[in-house]
Structures are given as C-alpha cells and as structure tokens.
C-alpha cells in the first residue's frame, strides 16, 4: 500500500449506511454532530418564525397581532421555544469550544471540554424551565 493509500485508509471511517458505527464515535464526533443538529434546529426555528409572521404580514396588521397573541398563549409554542433555547445553549457553548481550538487553546482537553458543554447546557436548560415554561410545568 502506497503512502497516499495508507493516509486515505487512516481517514476511512466507514460508510454512512453502516448504522452501528455510531457506537465507535469519540466525543469529538458527537460534538460535531450535535453542533450541526442544534444549528439546524435554531435555523429552522428562525425560518419558521419568519414564515409564520411573514404569512400573517401579508394578511395585515391585525393578523400579525392575532398570530403573536395566539402563538404566545400556546403551550406547544412554548415547548418549541424551550427546545430552541436548549439547542441554542449547547450550540453556543460548543461554538466557544470550537473557537478556543481555533486559537490553539484547549485542544488537549477537547473531550473534557465537550463534557463541560453538556453539563453547562443541562444546567442552563434546567434554569430556563421557569422562564420558558411558566404555565406548562
């Protein structure tokens, strides 16, 4: 095997279709996956807001006020807000972790920093329950 083939083989992490390979994931891989997933959740939440209020916008001012009132009173929407908050918190802490790596800080303890991100996210999410779900829980 040539040097180039060995280099490529070293980076071979299997096929996406190989479902069970997640059991071999290191914390860094979970961090990467969770960062993308939470980023997608936040972006989806933003787009949903623009689409809903945008639809109401074209129906007039009264429709926007009505949409705001209806959504504000909805328990389902509060739970969605809370989920977006949880996604944001993890994305934020992991984003700080990634930025630290960019300036060569904490690379040696990247696994521990990932666990710290998880713990901080759990703490913030629990602290956010009375704030985001005052009438739900």
């Amino acid at each position, binding site marked *: 095997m040539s040097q180039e083939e060995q280099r490529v083989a070293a980076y071979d992490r299997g096929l996406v279709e190989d479902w069970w390979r997640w059991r071999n994931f290191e914390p860094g891989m979970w961090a990467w996956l969770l960062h993308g997933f939470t*980023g997608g959740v936040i*972006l989806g939440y933003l787009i949903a807001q623009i689409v809903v209020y945008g639809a109401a*916008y074209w129906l007039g001012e009264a429709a926007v006020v009505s949409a*705001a009132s209806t*959504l504000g009173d909805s328990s389902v929407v509060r739970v969605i807000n809370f989920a977006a908050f949880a996604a944001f918190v993890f994305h934020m802490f992991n984003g700080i972790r990634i930025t630290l790596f960019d300036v060569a800080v904490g690379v040696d303890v990247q696994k521990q920093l990932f666990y710290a991100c998880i713990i901080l996210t759990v703490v913030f999410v629990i602290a956010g329950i009375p704030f985001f779900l*005052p009438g739900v829980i």
Partner: protein
Amino acid sequence: MVNVLSTRTHWILQRVTGVILILVFVVHVLLEWATPDQAAGTQGPVVGDQFFEIGISFSPLTYQVFAIATLAILLYHGLKGVSNIVTGHSRELSDRTINLINTILLVTGVILFIQGVLIIRMVAGMQPGGL
C-alpha cells in the same frame, strides 16, 4: 456570485458573527426578564409573545436597527453553517453543484431577510411613536 468573499473571510465572519450572537442572546434574555409583562402587568418571565414584548422596550428606531442587524447576522451565520456542512464534508460534490447549493442558500437568505425586515418594520410601526 456567491464567492465574493474569500474562504478565509467567511471563516473569520462565521466566528465573529457567532460571538456577536452570544452577546445578542445575553441582551435578549436580560431584556425579556426585565420587560414588564403587558398582559399580567408584572416583572419577570414573559407570558405572551416575546417578539412584541421586546419590541416595545426599545424606541422604534433602536428596535429596528437591533432587530434587522440581528436578523442579518443570524441568517448569515446559519446559512453559511449549512453551506459548510453540505459542501465542506461532501467530497463527491462537483464545483458546479457546490455553487448551485450556495446560490440557493444565498437567494433563500435574501428572501428571508427581506420578509424579516418587512415584519420588523410593521412591528416598529405598531408602537407608540413608531416610524
């Protein structure tokens, strides 16, 4: 069309916008906590729509500048993040496909931004002394 800025500039902007969004998040949470709830007439957790609760705590112009800047930064950070995931980790994609994906994301971002600005301006106009 979408490669006006260099990869390095996009990389820096992605980090800078991320840091700005953290600061915006902190301000947003503090304002929500400090804004009197219009329905309940109380201070504390907002019951009702946060979009409007926050809006009325600013002057219309300040609110618009803050909201529109946040919208632009959010859309850039988010859509560039999608672009990074889709194009940066797919070695099978051709340059043409990558350009197509980036163009679709750019157009989507512009449409969402315009719609967002229209909503923000409408909300600002609803406030006392609105524009």
